[in-house]
């Protein structure tokens, strides 16, 4: 990264870096990448819940970001725009995968969790719930995982998904309803 690009990012709003990035300047792009890759990775990990896949999807996301640079509005912040693109990339990945093979003991174990599981809830019930959740349609799953599990504000989830706050609430409601039905079929009454 050139010193010039580093210096540009010292200014609030990063206007100059944004403009250079829009013109295809790789140094400016690298600066934005270094600044946002961790947040983008964290966001994607929350959605796909697979560290190896999240790394690949970060690469895909920044590739798409670079391809779409001409559409970036330099008057706005980079982070929400990147989050929206990364959500789309993660959703594409989820749609392309069979839910049954997504969740196994190993993949659940490697995910860096914010808090330990409650020992009062049987491991089997947790696993059945996780599998039932993985069977939900990807659009509902993403809304529920971000709003309920990760407790992200509805507004932020709505912006990332490109839908309204009301639509996020509806997706969460539908996700919970379907999850409940699935669990009840398995004899679990939450």
């Amino acid at each position, binding site marked *: 990264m050139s010193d010039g690009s580093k210096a540009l990012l010292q200014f609030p709003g990063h206007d100059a870096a944004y403009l250079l990035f829009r013109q295809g300047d790789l140094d400016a792009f690298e600066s934005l990448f270094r600044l946002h890759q961790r947040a983008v*990775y964290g966001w994607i990990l929350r959605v796909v819940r697979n560290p190896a896949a999240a790394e690949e999807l970060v*690469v895909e996301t920044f590739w798409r970001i670079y*391809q779409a640079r001409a559409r970036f509005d330099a008057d706005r912040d980079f982070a929400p725009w990147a989050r929206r693109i990364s959500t789309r990339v993660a959703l594409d990945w989820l749609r392309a995968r069979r839910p049954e093979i997504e969740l196994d003991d190993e993949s659940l174990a490697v995910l860096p969790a*914010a808090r330990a599981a409650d020992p009062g*809830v049987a491991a089997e019930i947790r696993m059945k719930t996780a599998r039932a959740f993985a069977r939900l349609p990807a659009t509902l799953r993403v809304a529920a995982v971000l709003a309920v599990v990760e407790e992200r504000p509805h507004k932020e989830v709505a912006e990332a998904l490109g839908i309204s706050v009301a639509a996020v609430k509806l997706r969460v409601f539908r996700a919970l*309803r379907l999850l409940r039905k699935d669990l009840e079929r398995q004899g679990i009454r939450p």
Partner: protein
Amino acid sequence: MNAHDDDRLKQLLKQAVSPVETDAEPARDLWPAVLKRLDADTAGGARTRSRWVWFDVALLAGLAVLGVSFPAMIPLLLYYL
């Protein structure tokens, strides 16, 4: 189903699908992979362009040969264009 049931289901879901820790970060530097992806795209684009140039030349040559061999077909060809 009421709000209390919903809360219990949400709690169960949080137990089953734990939140990701907030300071999670990639295990490796991903910038080289991004650059590689960009390079691959550029090379792929150049290959596609060169294929189209080759295809255009071949098509034009074919039409020229056809025109010279069967001049009577030229008005028919132009009609269908």
